């Protein structure tokens, strides 16, 4: 792959070109696109069929082996929740920090966030024994005087996820409005109609811009704490329990860092092919990837520290349960998973100290794949390995996933990919109007922002 044209920091193109390039990404797609979409839908169907089987015969189809009562499903759930975080970080936090490099990538990442959360939200339903009673986890008045148990971290999860989904999807939609309008103006025929509806009558008046910018700012402010809170809550599913290997105060920051790390990994995995497919090489430049890589390096290093701490604390605590748990994590029956996680996350990310690697797309892509794998295994190790050998030695047991586990995992990727692909063809994956802001522009009037 070509190394990137230098000094792409300041975009050279004119406003017209921006709009043109981006809007061109919409409209009719090529065969490649539909093959990809078909693949995604097929994978999703595999998952759907598996789920129906689970409904019919029970969770026993999956590889659960007591004492391992949670495994692949919860792993994948945490994985997808984590993916979302990078999106919010980039789109919201970096916006508040006025970081210039976010403008180009944020739309794609925000979309990724929404779809990742949509994927994760399926798992609390999939993984329970009687899926048809899922609604019992929601607080609703009933004649039996029964309420959910607000002490249970699982209930916190329900709230965290729903909040996260609401905010981030609103954020995405609001951000889209001006761009959809821009697209609308370039469209003809029935397409125009659709975009007209979607653009919610956006005319670009002064008032609209004023409301828009305010709303955008507040939503960003609203989304910011979620980056920290949501994954903290998810981490408490584990930290709040007694299980050695889960029962750690380090968990919330540890998980948040991991989440952003995995999220950025996923951003790289998506953007690198995307810029090529959509012919936006001149927009997604070395400058952006370099920054993404740095972010990865930063969060990866935090993980490195967290891993080290986990083992240190386990040893230093002199708690024989913790010690056994971590010893077996590294040298027990699941050593391979344990080391996959450490190598992929703690060590691979360290390669980003070298600018050569940060700016080599091939390397970036390969490493991003490693990151995704590593982060999935992190959750798998934490969940399965810790449960396999906790307090009661007689009850120890190892689990092996079955087709039902892989089916759902595959389905989740299909579901996510399906939505993202549909989005990429229907809506601007680059924020037209925000890019225009980065291009020098004589302000004619006060106001705006």
């Amino acid at each position: 792959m070509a190394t990137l044209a230098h000094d792409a920091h300041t975009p050279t193109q004119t406003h017209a070109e921006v709009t043109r390039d981006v809007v061109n990404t919409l409209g009719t797609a090529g065969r490649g696109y539909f093959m990809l979409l078909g693949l995604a839908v097929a994978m999703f169907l595999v998952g759907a069929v598996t789920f129906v089987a689970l409904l019919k015969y029970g969770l026993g189809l999956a590889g659960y082996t007591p004492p391992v009562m949670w495994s692949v499903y919860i792993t994948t759930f945490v994985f997808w929740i984590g993916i979302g975080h990078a999106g919010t970080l980039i789109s919201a936090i970096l916006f508040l920090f006025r970081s210039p490099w976010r403008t180009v990538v944020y739309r794609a990442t925000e979309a990724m966030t929404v779809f990742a959360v949509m994927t994760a939200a399926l798992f609390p339903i999939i993984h329970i024994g009687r899926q048809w009673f899922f609604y019992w986890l929601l607080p609703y008045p009933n004649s039996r005087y029964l309420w959910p148990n607000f002490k249970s971290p699982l209930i916190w999860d329900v709230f965290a996820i729903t909040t996260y989904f609401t905010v981030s999807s609103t954020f995405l939609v609001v951000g889209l409005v001006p761009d959809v309008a821009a697209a609308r103006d370039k469209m003809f025929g029935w397409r125009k109609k659709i975009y007209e509806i979607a653009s919610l009558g956006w005319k670009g008046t002064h008032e609209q811009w004023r409301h828009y910018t305010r709303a955008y700012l507040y939503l960003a402010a609203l989304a910011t704490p979620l980056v920290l809170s949501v994954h903290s809550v998810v981490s408490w599913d584990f930290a709040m329990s007694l299980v050695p290997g889960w029962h750690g105060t380090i968990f919330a920051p540890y998980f948040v860092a991991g989440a952003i790390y995995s999220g950025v990994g996923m951003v790289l995995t998506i953007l690198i092919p995307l810029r090529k497919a959509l012919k936006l090489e001149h927009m997604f430049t070395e400058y952006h990837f370099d920054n993404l890589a740095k972010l990865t390096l930063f969060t990866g290093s935090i993980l490195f520290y967290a891993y080290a701490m986990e083992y240190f604390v386990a040893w230093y605590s002199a708690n024989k349960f913790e010690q056994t748990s971590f010893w077996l994590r590294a040298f027990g029956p699941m050593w391979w998973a344990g080391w996959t996680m450490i190598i992929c996350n703690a060590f691979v990310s360290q390669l980003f100290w070298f600018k050569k690697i940060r700016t080599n797309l091939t390397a970036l892509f390969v490493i991003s794949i490693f990151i995704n794998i590593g982060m999935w295994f992190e959750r798998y190790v934490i969940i399965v390995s810790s449960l396999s050998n906790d307090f009661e030695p007689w009850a120890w047991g190892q689990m092996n996933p079955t087709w039902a586990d892989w089916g759902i995992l595959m389905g989740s990727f299909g579901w996510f990919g399906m939505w993202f692909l549909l989005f990429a063809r229907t809506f601007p994956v680059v924020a037209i109007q925000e890019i225009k802001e980065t291009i020098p522009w004589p302000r004619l009037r006060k106001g705006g922002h």
Partner: protein
Amino acid sequence: MTDESTSEQIDRRKFLKVLGVTGGGALALSGCSTDRVTKLIPYLVQSEDQVPGVATYYASTCTECHAGCGLHVKTREARAIKLEGNPEHPVNAGKLCARGQAGLQGLYNPGRLKGPKARAADGSFQEITWDEAINRLADKVGAARGKIAVITGAAPGTFSDLLSAWTTALGGQVVRYHAFDHEPMRAANRQVFGIDELPAYDFAKARYIVSFGADFLETWLAPVEHQRGFAESHGYQDGQMGKHVAFGPRMSLTGMNADEWHAIRPGSDAVLALAMANLIMSERTGAPADANGLRGVLAPHTPEAAAQETGLPAEAIKRIAREFASAKPSLAVAGGVGNQHRGATELCAAVNILNYVAGNVGQTVNFGAALAAGDGYGSMNDLAKRLDAGEVTVVLVHEANPIYSLPKSSKFSGKFAKATFKVSTSLFLDETARECDLLLPGHHALERWDDARPRRGVTGLMQPVMQPVFNTMATGDVLLKVAQRLGGPLASISAPSFEAYLKTAWQTQVPRGSDFDTFWRGALQRGGVYGSAPATPVRLAPGAQQVGYHKPAFDGTETAGDFIFSAYPTSMLHDGRGANRPWLLEMSDPVTKITWHSWVEIHPDVARDLDVQEGEILRLTSPFGSIEAPAYVYPGLHPGLVAVPLGLGHTEFGEYAKGRGVNALDLLNGEAPGGFLPYLATRVSVAKTGKYQRVAKTEGNVRQLGRGIADALTLEQARSGVAPALAEKAGGHEGEENPPREVAALKGWREEQQEEARLGAYAQDFPKWAMVVDLARCTGCSACVTACYAENNIPTVGPEQILRGREMTWIRIERYYEGGESPGEPLETRFVPVMCQHCGNAPCEPVCPVYAAYHTADGLNGQVYNRCVGTRYCSNNCPYKVRYFNWLAYGQQAFREPLNLQLNPDVTVRARGVMEKCTFCVQRIRGAQNQARMEDRTLADGDVVTACAQACPSSAIVFGNIKDPGSRVARLASDQRGYHLLEDLNVRPSVTYLAKVLHEAEG
């Protein structure tokens, strides 16, 4: 207790429909779904003893082995739903073993024959009517002209008498055949004491027990009785505790419960017993005078000689002999089936001498009881010969399965086939029935009138507790009908029904001054008549002079790399009759914890040398056959031994048994001389097949990693009152006081209650249910597990699910090893029954998102199945891992017709997708509370007994209200031996364990 004395009531019960009006889960398997009985079908006639929703108990007698334990049969809506021990019965005193309880699954077994069948021309079986069947039998029997033989496994009793009378009247021969008949013991008793009977052994009295391969806790004579006695003698009580030493090539469950187990060279134990006797004679006085005549015989058998033979240090032998002699009374036992080598008779004789010289005969060995026994293996061989010679044309097989329980090498089935007309009364289509021409399926013991005389002075009664499940007929009635039809020689045997016959027979027993009806009613209520047999004093017979020791011979030529093969009985499958009971198949073997299939036990060193991993399928080949089974590496073996359990490898016997596992008998010599079948007398070669099969076992990590789960104290520590926790630390601090246990159990409890009261939620003061498990008494026999399965509608899940660790045992017996890691270091086994600990500060409760797991006012850790959505978080957070998840609809396959008739209507049948666990038998608690409220009284200690505590033969489990200071549980919970599992977690369990007590290792 109600009784069924008049035939009129029996007629009435005919009208009772099994479909009661209960809305309970009896027939609806959907468990936590809301579909329900839509029809109400009333009884035609109201019966005096069946009130809908109220359990009725009938006294009966267990027929699963010849110990003849007394039963209380719990029935609901005229269905037997649970078997419990009869407290009045002298043998089991209210306790019952796993096999006895599983008798229910014999009654409701899907593999039962649904009605009489006859073999058609094409060799298949065809349904016929009972009249037809009886006609055929009568014709054949009439035509046989004396060439009749009857093989019966029935216990002595009125039926056996009828059978003998019937057969002899026809000029036939009756062979009473028991697979495990203990012939060597009786031979030895003839030889040494000149008395041909099996004595009763008083384990409770014995202060020192030495077992020469007698598995008295498993299959030897009357296991439940022995276990009760053993718990009395060996359980720790105010500073006292008996000692138990076990010799034998394999460590059975009995060996695991010994303070010392010594692996001796197979077959060398007779000389050991003689050496001990010799030492006692030479060192001690007080042996009976006539024993002096033995000095000469014993002299050559010095401890050194014995050491030479057995491979034990002579010092150990001397020490044990001295301890044995100084403990009064002591008890030595031998004659276990698993240790039945060629020299078994010699061994039993030697042990008789040992008991005699130690003065135990008449103390702990009581002749006169004459335990039930058959005619022995020899007479079975004679019959086989007669069959072979064509001297028998008609054979009737009753409650016996010789084609399975005799080795193939005896070629019995071929000889059996030579009889022209073969009749089976078996309830199942077993191997023998399959070869028969006429099948007359009899009633199950719970469906018929019968009695049993397990020993002199004890007669147990059986009465029909419910309508027959299938179109079967009591064999007694069949015999009577045939007699009626034939007349002639049988004319003398006439009664309208076997019930009438039985009553007539009982007329003779009526004591002076009481009329028959009162006597009969009383007998039915108590379950029989229980007297004590007059003791028969015995003296040495001349035969005693012949005792001696010869190296026992082993079949097959001795070549390098050969092993001696041991086929031993397990406490679950016995002689194979347990193999069609899902409960017993799923029950993990107390020793190896393996379920559902056969295995080959090999010693760890051997495994290392042969490079064999657990699960590798090994082929064992003897001169008589070969079998293949997965390896299980077991440290409790003599390295020269490989062992395979008996009881599996059926070729018939219903879907559960058929084709499951291998039959260890295939390797044995079926034509061995000596009047008994030697189970430990064959050499085998072991070959690796390279195939693997994961072993379906419930065993996890066998070491407790110093986590204080199975705590133990030395006798010294126990006496000086050291807390188990402290004992863990180097010897413990002498005389340190242990904080009262109930303080921990009740800590914070009252505050919580007052808070509740303040909130107005609970007006009254509630009890706090708690449990105590005494590890010094628990033998790991697993009777409690079966009791729990029966009481709580727990489904069996099958081997595939067990491989995924998904067994549903609400109470499980954990078996931890201590020591035995370095050569010479003794291997100690500790059993810990683990059920839900009902923590006062339970980790499972706060994490449940829907309050399905919550704390009840009376201290239970409630589990509301119909609220559970199945997040399984509670199980993750449970440090004891005692919560079990219903992964697939287990109930659907476990409770198929007619097994579902056993279900307890008071307990929900759980649906899939919900978490379930031990409830402290909450249904029994609520039932007792309802009863107490109806009678306007408060619950008394003992009103509520959990199923496990009720069944436990060694009374290791005690349940009650710990807030009542007078209750047994409160007193025991404050015992200084008490501790909680994983106490440091501060979950405040309601279950207190009393640490096991060990004799200081010596010698």
